[in-house]
């Protein structure tokens, strides 16, 4: 009986195998040649580029001022790219007077116009590159081209346009983004969108309000988060109105934004929000109360220390230990809650802030009655409630280090 290999052989596999060998070896050789050629080409390219960057750097002031006529380099794409990169890098790191000079240069040399043209006419990665570069220039004349790209069918182009507009960071750019969102809904990733809006709405957060009222639930959620980041005390009454909104994201945003408001009424509203049924609203409210740093907030924070959510408890504890001059009285109130989880959270925050010894010392000198002082010192020392009611949920492990 003939072997499998012999059968294959009779079917003339030799020819096939031989061709395959030649093919595979040819591919090996081609791959090798490609690697070697590409490497040597790139080596030469970068050597040339480095040398040119050095030359241009020597003439930088003359280039910027126009002493060297723009026509001498702007038609050479190799030089133009280098100069644009150098100018944009310098622009992003420049102080106000320098950036005005660089922006003037980018305009008068036609670099911005060139990028606007590319952003409108090119496709694929070249277009994306132009869109991002336009954003980096922060020139308002780039807004229409960026705005057009927001309506592109290619999601990557939309993302690049969004990043570009976000980099511009102006209310005009925000208007374009908001207008487009109202028109087409949220069809880009949420995080870059929020970042872009945060950058653009910082100066004038009011522009978000009208869109917030008209937007659908998904967009409202996005805008609410942005508002939470950019809201200023000037929005006071609108923020308080939002604290009653049915959308939890908006209530959370209101809570976050209220951390920038004047204490007083804000503490009251945040106190209400710290009892919200939704955990992340409570969390935002507790963080915001902490930022207000007002003693009127302490009862709300003590209450939040008994929250069912671990993160809320942790943030409440962190906020409470910031009231350093009130620590003994706060600790006494914490112990009175008789909440084991709350106490653990408070002690963890105390340890993280390296305040345990200080509290110990202050308790010893405090005006508490002897009995209460001893109780508080005992709780602080052993890290447990004395004669506590044991909570029923999974028990946090005692991790006091020996």
């Amino acid at each position, binding site marked *: *009986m*003939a*072997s*499998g*290999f*012999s059968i*294959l*052989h009779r079917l003339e596999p*030799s020819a096939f*195998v*031989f061709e*395959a*060998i030649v093919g*595979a*070896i040819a*591919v*090996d050789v081609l*791959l*090798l040649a*490609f*690697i070697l050629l*590409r*490497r040597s080409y790139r080596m030469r390219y970068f050597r040339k580029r480095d040398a040119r960057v050095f030359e241009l750097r020597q003439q930088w002031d003359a280039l910027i001022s126009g002493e060297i006529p723009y026509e001498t380099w702007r038609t050479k794409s190799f030089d133009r790219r280098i100069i644009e990169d150098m100018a944009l890098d310098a622009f992003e790191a420049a102080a106000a007077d320098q950036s005005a000079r660089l922006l003037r240069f980018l305009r008068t040399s036609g670099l911005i116009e060139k990028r606007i043209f590319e952003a409108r006419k090119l496709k*694929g*990665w070249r277009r*994306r590159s132009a869109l*991002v570069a336009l954003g980096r220039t922060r020139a308002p004349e780039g807004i229409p081209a960026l705005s057009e790209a927001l309506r592109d069918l290619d999601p*990557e182009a939309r*993302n*690049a346009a969004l*990043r570009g507009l*976000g*980099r511009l960071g102006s209310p005009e750019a925000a208007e374009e983004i908001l207008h487009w969102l109202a028109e087409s809904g949220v069809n880009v*990733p*949420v*995080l*870059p969108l929020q*970042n872009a809006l*945060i950058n653009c709405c910082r100066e004038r957060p009011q522009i978000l309000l009208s869109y917030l009222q008209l937007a659908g639930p998904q967009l409202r959620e996005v805008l609410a988060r942005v508002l939470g*980041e950019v809201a200023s005390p000037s929005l006071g009454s609108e923020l308080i109105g939002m604290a009653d909104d049915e959308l939890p994201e908006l209530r959370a945003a209101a809570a976050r934004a209220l951390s920038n408001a004047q204490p007083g009424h804000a503490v009251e509203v945040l106190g209400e929000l710290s009892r919200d049924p939704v955990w992340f609203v409570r969390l935002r409210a507790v963080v915001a109360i902490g930022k207000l740093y007002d003693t009127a907030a302490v009862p709300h924070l003590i209450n939040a220390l008994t929250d069912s959510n*671990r993160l809320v*408890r*942790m943030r409440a504890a962190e906020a409470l230990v910031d009231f350093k001059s009130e620590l003994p009285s706060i600790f006494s109130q914490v112990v009175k809650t008789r909440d084991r*989880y709350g106490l*653990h*959270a408070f*002690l*963890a925050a105390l*340890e*993280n802030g*390296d305040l345990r010894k200080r509290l110990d010392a202050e308790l010893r000198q405090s005006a508490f009655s002897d009995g209460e002082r001893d109780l508080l010192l005992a709780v602080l020392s052993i*890290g447990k409630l004395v004669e506590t009611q044991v909570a029923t949920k*999974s028990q*946090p*492990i*005692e*991790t*006091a*280090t*020996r």
Partner: protein
Amino acid sequence: VIHHFLDVANYTLFFYYLSGNLAYLIALIIALKTSAAHQRRIESFRLRWITESPLAPPITLLAPAHNEEKSIRVSIRNLLELDYPELEVIVINDGSKDRTLEELQDEFKLRPVRMVYVQEVPSAEIRGLYRSDSDPRLLVIDKESAGSKADAVNAGLNAATSPYVCIVDADSMLERDSLLRIMVPVLADPKHVVGVGGIIRILNGSEIEGGQLRRVRLPRKSLEVIQVIEYLRAFLIGREAWAQGNMMLIISGAFGLFRTDLVRAIGGYRAKAIGEDFDLVARLHRHLIEKGQEYRIQFVPDPVCWTEAPSDLKSLGRQRARWHKGLLDTLLPNVDMLFRRRYGRIGFLALPYLWVFELFAPVIEIGGIFTIILAAALGDLSRDFFIQFMIFGYAFATVISIGAVLQEELTYKRYSDWQDVARLVTYCFFEHFPYRQLHMVWRLQGLWQYMRGDMSWKPLERKGLQSTTAP
């Protein structure tokens, strides 16, 4: 009967080898395309802008350390210096018997803290928690050893406070922008991306200064260079291509990012798992498919984690045997996912591939060598055809290896030295014999050890991340 058996065996070997290489060739083509797209995409995705974002999701880095006194200072300093706006670093001292904890205490001014530690996922007993006075982002968990990295990671998972956890090996070195890069898929699609893997590269031979990589060089030892090619092939071709179809089943334990809530929801790492990283990803797939959730587990080829590879045959053999044990240990509990419609392409493609072309590879290849020898002894082997087949197989496999080097050259170009690239390409021709056969023997040993119930594991000898200069 014996002749017929040899016929079938030789046919099987031929088609097995052909289909395995064809699969890799397809993967290479996919990877070349997607890497180019990724490179273009990242150009318009300015990483520095992420660092300025107030909404960048916080990350907790979990670094389990067991007897790492030589390198722990440098590697943790390295982690704390990573570019990311919201970072927490948790080092888990997993019952080290050396001075790992003392080294950390000296370097980072640790002080004991009493804080909430809820054991949501099981782990061994915690001995103490320490917060750094020099960098409050650092928390150290000192725990009893349960003999597995999985248990240590679980302890860290319980203490993590961020929505994303990134698991790293304490003896590895992350490039400074690694976290920014690994977060790119998450930022682009936070609703669906639940896990992201980065690339692991071999540190041996490179120059390190003050815990930072000063110059990337190819290792000097042949065994290490061959591992470089293996890693390039596995990551830049294999994982890149599998991730395109959302079928990536392994995110390396040395560097992977996951959504914290999901890892907790599936009970963290399986403490007894041998290949805990593979096991975790397989269970994540299962959990999310069974819940009917849309999700993506992605691979990004540019966030780099550098790690030390074994430099002698004994250590390498132990490592590979263990990896193969881990493979079997994860595939067996998930055998019910095979060819079930519910599990889609994971059940129909990814898992069968692993069974056939990874798990059974040593059995089939070593068995194949024996049947060829037997066929030759019995005069049943066409010598001409055999030689042609060998040459073809060799050339085809070399195409794949050079393809991996090409992929590296086209995209990430970490080896800037001409000599290194020339050596890398040269070794593509020499890795098939006798390394490949030796590798198969180690893998077969792994299978044998698993079947004997030998789950023991000796940690690899590491030189640590002290400053080194290439000769």
